[in-house]
Every structure is written in C-alpha cells, then in structure tokens.
C-alpha cells in the first residue's frame, strides 16, 4: 500500500517546483504517519485502528476592518491546522458514536517540516486512539441492550469507497494588503456622506486555503477552499427611537472575482442610502395576511432555510449515545422521521420546481460560484448532476460515508468547513440549482399580486425586496393605483416548506448567490428571482424605543452634508 501511495504521489504533484516540494513533504509525512498508526498503533487488549484519516488545513487569511475611511484592524497571517479521524472496529460497527464528521484538531507549525508534521499527527492520533477505544466499548455495549430491526442491524457504520488520488487547482488570489487597505478605507469613507448612520464598518475577509487529505485506505487529495467577502454594516436610529443595524456581505471564491471598485462603491452607497431611507419610512400600520411577492435575494432563504438542514436534504445519522456532543445538543432530532429522508417519493415542493446538485458548475450568469468543488472531504467525487427533488417530488438526500436506512450511499457531499480552530466536515451542498418549469416575468407576477389582493378584497399588497433580521425592506402596493410606499418595522413570518408546495407564481428568471452553509461551508444556489405566495403574515415588530443620546453624533455635529 505504501509503495502504491508513493508512486501515485508523484503523479499528483503539480508543475510548480516550490509547491511540489512543499506538497511532497506534507503528503509524505501524512502518509508515513497514517500507515505507522494503522499498522503499529496498539495498546494491549485493544484493537488496532481500522481506518485513519489525516487532514491538514493550510493557507493564509487577510482581514481588514475600516470605519469612515480609517483602518480599525488588519489581521494577516498564515494558518495551518491538522486533524485526525480514527476508527476502531470494522466498518459494520465502528467506534464512531456521534457521526458528526469532526476531526480531533490542533494547531500546526506554519513552516513545512516532515518531522514536525509527523510529530503533530502522532500526538493527536494517540489521544484519539485511546478515546475511540472507550467509545467502541460503550457503543458495543449500548447496541447489545437495544432492540434493532434486521435492517438496522445490517446497516454499516461506514461505507467502503474506492480510494482516489487527486489534486484540484484553486483560484488565484491577489491579497495585496496595502492595496486592499486603501480600497476598504475608500469604501468605508462613503459613510461620511450619511451622517444619520453610525457604527458603520466595511470589512474585507480573504481566505486562501488548501485541504490536504490522506487516508489509510489510500486516498490522497489536495483541494482548495477559497472564500472572500466584502461587507458593510451600519446602524441607524429612527425618529421614535428604534435602533436598527443592517449589514450585507458579498461572497466570492477569490478576491480577484470582486466587482470593480466603482461597482463596490455603488453597492456600499446604495446600502447606506437604503438604510437612511428605511429609517425615514413610515411604520407598517396593520396586521396583514395575504399575497406577498418576494424579490431577488429574499427568495433564497425559502430554499436554504427549508432544505439545507438535517430535517431537509442533509443526511444526519442519529447519534448512538445521547451523552455524546450531538446527542446533548440535538437530542433525538437528528434521525427524526420528520426529515425529508422519510418523504422520498412524496411531493415536497411545487410541481414546477426541480432541485439539483451541480457541484462542478463554476459560474452562472457572470457570478463565480463559491460552492464549486470536484472532490469531497472524504475523497469522493460527486456526480456532475444529481436530482434531489424532481418536479416537486423528493428523490435523494445528500450524504457522506455514514449511511442511514434511507440514504445508504455517499453522494460525495461531506464538505470541509472553514474554521480557524478545528477541522470539521459536514454534509452540505456545493452548488444547488432550483430550476423552474414555466414561470412568469416580473411584470406578470406583479400583476398577479394585485389580482390576488383584489380577489381577497384588500386595498394593499406587499412586495419584499430585502430581509435581514428586523431590517425588512418592503413596499406597500396600492391595488388601485399601483403606487408603492416603503414601510418598515415589518415582521414577516418565515416561509415554511409546506407553503412552497403551492406557489402562486414563480419567476422565469434565475439568479445565483454565494453563501455559507452553517456559517462555515462555501456554497452557491441558483434560484428564481421572484416568488409570489398567497398567504403570508406580516405584522409590526415589537421593538424598544430609546431616548436620543444627549451627545450628538460627531458627523452631525460637524455639520457634514
């Protein structure tokens, strides 16, 4: 096995001489220690490991924060962590109790040194091996006390795969600290033109990382994990004393994919302008239950919040031990039969909607997709296209190597998370695509909105253009004149999966957005840019009002425009 790996390593390494030597050292150290652990690690009366997986997270990060044209903080540094997964027992019953995809992780030296990488892996492996030996004993004992169906008893704990050797090229980065600092300061200076806003900040975050993966089965993978964002945040106080804080983040897979400075300036300016206008808008003055048209990014959470959870499309095997971390946090929820897994073959969405996983897609309509990946965190290559929901009917879950009764195979969907402290993996999509069969134009949808409202004898209907906590930008539309008025303080009841089974109208135009699953895994979604729902509840947010500070905001004090 060792020789096999070594010869494959040579094929794997790229042309760049520096990278070649660096990668070679890292892989050789990981592989040598993995094989030593597999073959030699044993304590008296305890089985040897049956599986060892080493991950090394390596790269650099740059974070710049600025306010009103001045740098608050710059954090630029290399980052390297290592993590170990280890199983004792054969794959039918392994020592894994909580199935949470975590690696036992620790910081690594940023300098590449064969001996040091091995020492770090050796020490962490030893800790985990001893831990797992007690886990296996506990799990075996628990299983003996349980009544299991023949299917449950036959379900393996870990599925076998064909090991692969693969190196995926990542994006190129600029990461010029001085240049970026100048740009971020230019962007944050825009808020000087908005004296009613305060605590404003512009933040740039660039992460150029690679994961190195070596398993005792023979998998050797290097894959990029690239994420960058520029975001802005600010607070505003309304006349009656309610404080609102809003923010946006523009995610891209590399800093070279950011829009031009002119476009970024326009975006920040628009954000500041919208927040200022929002504070001056009238308060919603009614409880509303009726048709609502959701536009642009407000459509996204309908899919991400309903589909990308362990109750949605992401398989999560129930923890064996209620005392394990996942057991403590999730109780019986993981493995609950309320999940989509138990609704395969049933209608779960409107019949015009089809949801696919297309992880190889790199770009859509000019948007570089952050969720693009070619191999998952377990060294499994996902299908180029996998239909998850076909014309509204639930078909398949996304899964990794931990099978469940309804999702017995991996779909290559176990993804590495970006985390500075631990190496973690989780089932998550790369690029999710919500296709629409048919659909209407935006004008048609607006006309339908008015029609539905009139049919309900309503004077007004609503169009939502932005949702972020209690900052919901929505327009009250007069059904007779079509006049639109911005209102605020609106609490919009979240749209449930059930509501998406019968949708009043869907746009025939799709947009793409990048986002983070569980706040840590880069993903993308392509989705219709407007959805009209018939019964949505909107009410007034209950907020507190504070008296105005006796100290005037310095921007207003100085008489800025």
């Amino acid at each position, binding site marked *: 096995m060792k020789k096999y790996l070594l010869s494959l390593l040579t094929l794997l390494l790229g042309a760049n001489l520096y990278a070649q030597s660096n990668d070679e050292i890292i892989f050789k150290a990981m592989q040598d220690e993995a094989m*030593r652990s597999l073959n030699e690690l044993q304590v008296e009366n305890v089985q040897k490991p049956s599986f060892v997986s080493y991950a090394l997270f390596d790269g650099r990060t740059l974070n710049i924060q600025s*306010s009103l044209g001045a*740098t608050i903080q710059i954090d630029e540094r290399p980052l390297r962590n290592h993590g170990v997964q280890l199983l004792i027992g054969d794959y039918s019953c392994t020592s894994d109790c909580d199935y949470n995809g975590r690696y036992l992780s620790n910081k*690594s*030296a940023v*300098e590449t040194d064969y001996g040091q990488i091995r020492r770090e892996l050796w020490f962490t492996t*030893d800790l985990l091996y*001893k831990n797992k030996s007690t886990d296996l004993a506990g799990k075996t004992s628990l299983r003996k006390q349980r009544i299991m169906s023949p299917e449950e008893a036959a379900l393996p704990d870990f599925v076998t795969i064909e090991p692969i050797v693969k190196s995926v090229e990542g994006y190129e980065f600029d990461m010029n600290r001085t240049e970026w600092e100048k740009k971020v300061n230019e962007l944050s200076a825009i808020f000087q033109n908005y004296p009613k806003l305060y*605590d404003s900040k512009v933040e740039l975050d660039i992460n150029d990382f690679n994961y190195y993966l070596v398993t005792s089965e023979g998998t050797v993978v290097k894959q990029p994990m690239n994420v960058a964002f520029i975001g802005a945040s600010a607070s505003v106080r309304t006349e009656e004393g309610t404080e609102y804080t809003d923010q946006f983040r523009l995610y891209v897979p590399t800093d070279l994919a950011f829009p031009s400075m002119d476009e970024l300036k326009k975006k920040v300016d628009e954000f500041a302008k919208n927040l200022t206008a929002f504070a001056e808008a009238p308060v919603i003055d009614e409880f509303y239950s009726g048709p609502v048209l959701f536009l642009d990014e407000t459509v996204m959470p309908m899919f991400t919040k309903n589909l990308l959870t362990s109750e949605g499309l992401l398989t999560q095997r129930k923890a064996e031990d209620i005392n394990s971390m996942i057991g403590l946090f999730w109780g019986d929820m993981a493995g609950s039969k309320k999940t989509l897994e138990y609704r395969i073959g049933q209608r779960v969405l409107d019949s015009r909607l089809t949801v696919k996983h297309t992880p190889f897609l790199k770009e859509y309509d000019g948007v570089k997709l952050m969720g693009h990946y070619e191999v998952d965190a377990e060294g499994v290559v996902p299908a180029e296209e996998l239909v998850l929901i076909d014309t509204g009917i639930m078909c398949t879950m996304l899964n990794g190597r931990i099978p469940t009764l309804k999702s017995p195979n991996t779909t290559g969907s176990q993804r590495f998370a970006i985390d500075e402290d631990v190496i973690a993996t989780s089932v998550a999509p790369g690029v999710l695509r919500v296709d629409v069969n048919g659909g209407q134009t935006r004008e048609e949808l607006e006309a339908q909105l008015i029609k539905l409202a009139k049919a309900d004898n309503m004077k007004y209907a609503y169009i939502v253009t932005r949702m972020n906590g209690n900052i919901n930008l929505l327009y009250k539309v007069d059904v007779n004149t079509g006049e639109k008025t911005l209102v605020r303080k609106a609490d919009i009841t979240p749209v449930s999966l059930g509501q998406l089974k019968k949708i009043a109208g869907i746009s025939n135009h799709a947009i793409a957005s990048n986002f983070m699953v569980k706040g840590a895994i880069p993903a993308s979604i392509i989705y219709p840019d407007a959805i009209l729902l018939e019964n949505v509840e909107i009410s007034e947010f209950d907020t507190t009002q504070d008296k105005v500070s*006796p100290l005037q905001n310095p921007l207003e004090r100085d008489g800025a425009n």
Partner: protein
Amino acid sequence: MRTKFLCLAVLLGSLLPFAPASAQDPMLDLLRDELKYDMEQLSKTENPPYYMNFRVIETSQNVVRATFGTLQESTFKEARSFIPQIRLGSYDFDNFHGMVNGVPTSWFSGPSTVYIPMGNNEKALRQAMWSEVNNRYKFAIEQYERLKAAEKVYTKTDDKAPDFSDAKVEKYFDQPFTQEELAFDRQKFEEKLKKYSALFLKNPHIITGEASMSYVCTRKYFVSSEGAEIAENNRSARIFITGMMKTDDGMELPLNLSYFAFDPDDMPSDEKIIADVEHLIATLDKMRTAPIVEPYTGPAMLAGEASGVFFHEIFGHRTEAQRMKNDSDGQTFKKMIGQQVLPKHFSAYDDPTLKNFEGQDMNGYYVFDDQGVRGQRVEIVDNGTLKGFLTTRVPTDEFNQSNGHARASAAYDPASRQSNLLITTDKPKTMEQLRKILIKEAKAQKKEYAYYFVNVNGGYTQTGRTSPNAFNVTPLEVYRIYVDGRPDELVRGVDLIGTPLSMFSSIIEGSDKTSVFTGICGAESGWVPVTASSPDIVVKKVEMQRKSKSMQTPPALPRP
C-alpha cells in the same frame, strides 16, 4: 529634503521637551476635545457626570513561536482600544459603588474590547469614541439607580469611605515610539527560537518542546475631566521556553524558562539560554522517574522565584485595598495596620517605579497608573509590621489617597493591583546557613526530610468569603532534603497549599540572594504585568497535596 525635515523634527523635539501636550500628539488633542464636549453636554442632562476619563491603549505586538526546531507562528498585530470611565453622583456615592467595571460583565466573560481606528482620522475616531461613551453612559445611569435603590433595602458595607477621591492633576508626555524602538528583527528571533526548541529533539521522551517570544510596544493615553493628560510608553520583550514529558502514570511534567527585558536586544546570550534549556531537559529526564510525593506537612525551603510567587499569592493580593471595600472580600489585613504580620526582620514593598533590579528589567514598571496617578513605592510591611496597602482613587476607611496602584488591561476599569512586589530581610543568611536551619527545623519536627521548592509555574488564591480563603502554588521542581545527609532527591506530583494567616506566622528566615519572578497577573481588572521578588525562605510548616493529573498514558508509539 525629507532627511532635512526629519533631522529638524528630531532637533525641535529635543529642544522643546516641555512643549504643551497639544503640540505633540494629535490623539491627546482629540481626547481632550472630545472629553470636554462630552462633559459639557452631559452636564446639561438629569444625570450629569461629576468625573470622566478616557483611556486609549495602542499596542504593536510581535509574536514568534517555534516547536521542536520548526517555526509555529510568526505574527505582527497593531491595535488601538478605547475605554471611557463615566462617574455619576458624587465622590461620596457614585455608580461604581462597590463595582469595578463600568460595563456589564458576567462570570463567563469580562468586558468586550472596543477597537477604534488607527491613524489620525478625526471623524472616524470621534464617532467610535462617541459610540462607546453612549454605551457606558447608558449603563452608568442604570447602575447608579440600581445602587441607590440597593442602599435602601440592603445592609450597608462596613467600609464607610467615599467611592472616589481627589488626586493631583498630572501632565506627562513620552514622545511616540521611534522606528528603532518599534523595530523587531523577526528573522533573527525566528532562527534563535528554532535553535532553542530544536534542543528538545535530543530527548525522545519530550512531548512538548516550545520556545516563544513576544515583543510588545504599548502607548497609553489618559485624559480626565480634571485636566490630567498623560501619554506613556512601555515596552516588553519576553522569551518563554517550555518542555514537557509524560510519566507512565499519566502525569504531565512541564518545566519552563522565562526571560524578560524591555529591549529585545537585552535578552541573554544564546550560550546562556542553550545551557539553561539543556539543564531543563536533564532535569525533566530525572523527573520522569522521580518518586511521587505523598501529602505532607512540615518545614520547607522556597527558592527566590517560588517564594516570590508564594508572597504574590498569599500576601500581595491581600494588600490590594480597593477589594477590601467590598463585604464579600475576606479582608484579611483590613484591620491589621500596625500589627506584626511577618517576622520582624522581614519587610515588603511594592514599587512600580523600579525599572531595574540587580540587572533585571522589571515587568511591573510604570510611571502612571490607569487612573492617571503617579506610581509610588509603598512600604507594605516594615520590620514585620503592616504599614500600608496598594491604593487607588477608590479610598478605604484606612487610606483615603491613591498611591498609584490602579491598574487594568484593555476594556477593563482599574482596580488595586500589584506591580513589582519585593520581599527583603535585614538578617540575610547564606544558602548554606539556610539549609542548616531547614534541616534543624525538620529534625525538631521529627521529620526524615524537608522539601525544597526550586521552580514554580504560578499560582492562584481566593480572597472572597464564599470559598475557603486559600492559596495554591504549583511547583514544577521540588527536592527532598534528607536530615541524615543523604543526597537531595528530586520528586514530583505536588501542589503547595494553605491559608494565608497561618503561613505568615510560619516564615522563619530568608537568604542573602533575591530572585525575580516575572509574570502576568489576572484579576477583576484584567491581566497586568507584574514581578515578585524574594530571597529564598525557610518556612516552618507548609502543606502539600497531590496535584491533579491526566489519565492519559504516554503515547503508545515512539515520537517520530
């Protein structure tokens, strides 16, 4: 042209050392203006402050870390934080009555650090300051009303002193750091640390072999509504080396080396550090097979650094006056001024003005404390008699003036804290004499041996009333000294514990050699740099308990 301007600027700076602060530092100007505006505006409200101060802490921090000869980390970070203090009510009773911090804190977390922009962008700086002043002012009003209500329904504290006192208004200005002072030869120290930590590879039983270095330049600004204006610089360079082994029974055995200087160039030579590391490795190797100590009471000798930590924990923390205002504090010494607390030949003082002691730079040095009061040497114990406490502008019944010991880290408000604590004896013994005294005492107590604590990791103490008023010092290197002349025996696995008052009465003699322990001390006002210096001492009776240990056995496979 640029060179000429620079030369001129340096010349002007040297010719005008007493130029008014406004001509010297834009940050000081801005703080003064903003504070003036805030005081004026807030004085028109129904909750006018009677006092305010603004603190700004600028740090530039270099960190290098190496492990087993490989570079682990090498970073540089700059930050600027802002901490306003707003006092409502009056000197007699204000919103800090019995409280340390002007923002909400919990058992789990202290105040959040508020970072403000670097550079001199006035608009950005003013708005960041304005935002935090608003936050703290809001909390100040709520807290003040709560405290006033509490006065009506709860018992009053024993201490009747006011909540705040007068202090001399000071103006002090250090020139901003020069490029030479800020410079850090990163490559040189990366190589050095790699060299030191690589020495641990020589011993296969060592599981942790690290060398780290930090070089921090701190510039602190303090401006008060009374007119104080201070800008003070401090530098600290520290090398810390740690090696650790694991015994077959799971016990982790760490040993540390620590070097401190204000200037990185003043660190000891490679020869000295390498020799120290090699000695540390040899000691660790012996400790691995050393016997475990059973719980013990009896005589002991504490080497200077161990003794310094011992005094810092059992003694120093109990002389921090501000805490004594609170009835939940143990107030060990509050009513003991004028009484004998140590043997008559022992004295103790705390001196923030001490910059260097017997060739060692002192980490607890500062000119002004965090309430803008000049740090003063305080005679705490004179010939065994308790004379003074470490005071702040929060007075107690016993001491109504600050002696410049109000200290805090970023985000926190200050409280009484130690700086450079020094223990002295006017009847010093040689080490040989001290050893004889120890053996004599052991014999008198019919002990087969006594203990000698050479090296400690640190310690902690509890001064409150809800838990035993005890201390714990964590020794790293301990020897048995046999009364029958057998060679000293290295042992392992003990903590030094006890209660303070019984310990003071047990101290017998001190040596003619003083050692300095350099550390960072954590308490209710955050982490502050300190030193604790003491001669080696002999104590009639110490108590030792087994130290906690991991259940993890040593790694099953040899270290690669």
